[in-house]
């Protein structure tokens, strides 16, 4: 037994055995449920296959969400009720307000710019000779973690005094053409926008891949019909391409928006969220785990949650609408 519990390989084998056993059990039960007929069969099937998922969803998502909300009305050790004090802090603390402003700029700029860049790029390279190479070039940053991208860009933005040898790419270029070096990461409020560029760099590839696939799915006869009608490039884009890929556009924009609301790694790795580059998610982490203040940390988490909800609702409504349009 020791082998299974105390060695890594043993634990791995044990996990495989247990998992296989659970799946086998479920399949066995499914076979049994299969024998019922009619309504009770549907009931058992839903319970069997939906039950575990619903249970895990409740345990891993719904319960923590409720607990976090409750904790946001309690003190730092989650022991006494303190009413709205944590929310009052969230809306009066200067650092917290700064993180709202910064997060606002992130959420406005990252989804719009990266989707626009991705869309234009996808249209430009579509059916060109270098399409595959061109697409991989833009997609590569997608494979890099946020922290890794942050470190790469930190070198790009690196600042040295005017008299020193520049080791940062951008400042080397800037001083090369005879200008003063720029402190990209140190001067607020511009530093936030230089951080936002990093996220756009990553997300544009994601947008491009999805939108490119959607463009390819536009039926050829529609495009040909439009050509016969003599549309110019702008009309083609405005009246054919965009309406045809609208569902994908919505998915891309909302997905990037949700990812951007949670942005944490890039400011942390590049500026340590100093120099007025604080964002909501990083503020939440600092409050909860570094300062041990469960109350304010939870309140910030609830705020992020509340901000995400309208986007998710919009996303779902769009999907339902699309289904109606398609007549399914």
């Amino acid at each position, binding site marked *: 037994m020791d082998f299974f519990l105390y*060695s890594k390989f043993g*634990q791995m084998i044990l996990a*495989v055995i247990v*998992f*296989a056993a659970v799946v086998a059990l479920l399949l066995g039960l499914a076979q049994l449920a299969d024998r019922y007929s009619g309504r009770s069969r549907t009931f058992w099937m839903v319970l069997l296959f939906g039950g575990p998922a619903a249970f895990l969803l409740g345990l891993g998502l719904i319960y923590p969400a409720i607990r976090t909300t409750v904790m946001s009305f309690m003190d730092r050790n989650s022991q006494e009720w303190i009413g709205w004090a944590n929310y009052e802090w969230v809306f009066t603390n200067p650092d917290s307000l700064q993180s709202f402003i910064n997060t606002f700029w992130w959420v406005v700029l990252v989804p719009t710019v990266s989707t626009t860049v991705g869309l234009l790029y996808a249209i430009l390279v579509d059916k060109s000779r270098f399409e595959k190479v061109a697409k991989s070039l833009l997609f590569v940053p997608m494979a890099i973690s946020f922290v890794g991208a942050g470190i790469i860009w930190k070198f790009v933005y690196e600042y040295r005094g005017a008299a020193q040898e520049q080791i940062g790419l951008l400042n080397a270029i800037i001083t090369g053409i005879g200008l003063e070096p720029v402190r990209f990461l*140190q001067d607020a409020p511009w530093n936030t926008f230089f951080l936002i560029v990093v996220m756009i760099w990553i997300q544009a590839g994601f947008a491009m891949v999805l939108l490119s696939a959607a463009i390819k799915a536009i039926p050829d006869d529609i495009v040909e019909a439009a050509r016969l009608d003599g549309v110019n490039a702008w009309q083609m884009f405005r009246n054919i391409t965009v309406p045809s890929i609208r569902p994908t556009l919505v998915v891309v924009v909302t997905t990037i928006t949700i990812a951007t609301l949670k942005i944490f790694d890039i400011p942390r790795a590049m500026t340590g969220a100093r*120099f007025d580059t604080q964002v909501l998610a990083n503020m939440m982490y600092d409050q909860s785990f*570094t*300062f041990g203040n469960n109350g304010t940390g939870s309140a910030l988490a609830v705020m992020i949650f509340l901000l995400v909800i309208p986007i998710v609702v919009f996303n779902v409504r769009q999907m339902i609408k699309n289904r109606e349009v398609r007549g399914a």
Partner: protein
Amino acid sequence: MINRRRTTASLAGAAALALTLAACGGADDLGGGGGGGGGGATAGGGETDCSAYEEYGSFEGEKVTLFSSIREVEADQLQDTFTDFTECTGITVEHNGSGEFEQQVVVQAEGGNAPDLAIFPQPGLLQRMVKEGHVVAAPDAVEKKVDEGWSEDWKNYGTVDGEFYAAPLMASVKSFVWYSPTAFEENGYEVPKTWDELMTLTQKIADEKGSDTTKPWCAGIESGGATGWPATDFIEDMVLRSAGGDVYDQWINHEIPFNDPQIVEAVDMAGAILKNPDYTNGGLGDPRTIATTSFNDGGLPILDGECFMYRMASFYEAQWPEGTDVGPDGEVFAFYLPGMTEDESPLLTAGEFVGAFNDREATAAVQAYMASGDWANTRVEIGGVTSANKAVDPELASSDVLRLAIELLQDESAVARFDGSDLMPSEVGAGSFWTGMVDWVNGSETKPVLDQIEASWPAS
């Protein structure tokens, strides 16, 4: 037949998924497994003299889990200190190190899954865990060892509300200035003995060597999410020098406000070096570059002759590139950051503390061993660290810098104080003090920055 094939396929899929999951779990390292090799490591066979370990008692096959932030080489070195102990007492010590120790230890304790022992890098975190009722008081055997080996101050850092909880383990000296003995030799510079001498030397270097690229001092305080801490160390060193140990204690306990005139004076003393464009920042630019230069890279321009001094703790030794000659006559070495006069030797220290989460006898035995002079000597001899235990023989130290550090730590006349930001409430010590210092280096004035830190001090 089709049905059957489908079942096999889904089973195969399930197994593949399980493998992935298991692999993730394995990499996580929080699950307690892994170790277990402690007992087997005692090769060489039966020559160990067990008389020194008799006092800890005899246990057969017991296991004690130890959790810390120590990883990789240092973790192996830590494990090696238990080789003989395990052979003689029968207790296997299973050590687990995590980069997220500070967060994880709280989660584990609250989840009822605490380790037997934990090594706390900050007294503040220990206090928080004691107040939440997780850490148990240290047994008498441990307290006896601590009374023998450590000064009253060190014992106090492991004491909460008059009750003693955790013995100090290892220590580092923060009041060091790294410099190049060869460069000093070439230019005829002497290692300063007082603060005035240091400032005179600084001015002299600035006059003789100063240029747009070369400055007397280097500095760097960037450290990811912890950006700012090297500057708080500098300030703490200044408070110890300009205002003394008593004011320092009042300051970190918030008996005087954070923006007290004496603290303003100390911060301006650091500012005379850090914020003077003629004095910093060698090889990098103006003083504002301090805020974006990582502390790891901060001292390296010394090797290029672009700066001459870098104030950083004893552990900076590990940052010099491979092959650098570190020693009293070498390329780099450290001198003690001087006090106001030659007789005063204020010392800023940091260290780790071992606290227990239960009162099992085996736990107590390991805790007592780790508090002993024997353990300290064993660990120092293995290398890379220092201890403030009086029993430690400086000759065992693995390098000249560490030997110097041990001598300073054992100096009875030194006014030694623990890193203040580790003792303050974390909103300040890991929050506003850090961010405030970043703003300050980035150009803000002293008084408004200190006012802001004072305003962030939690009410209760």
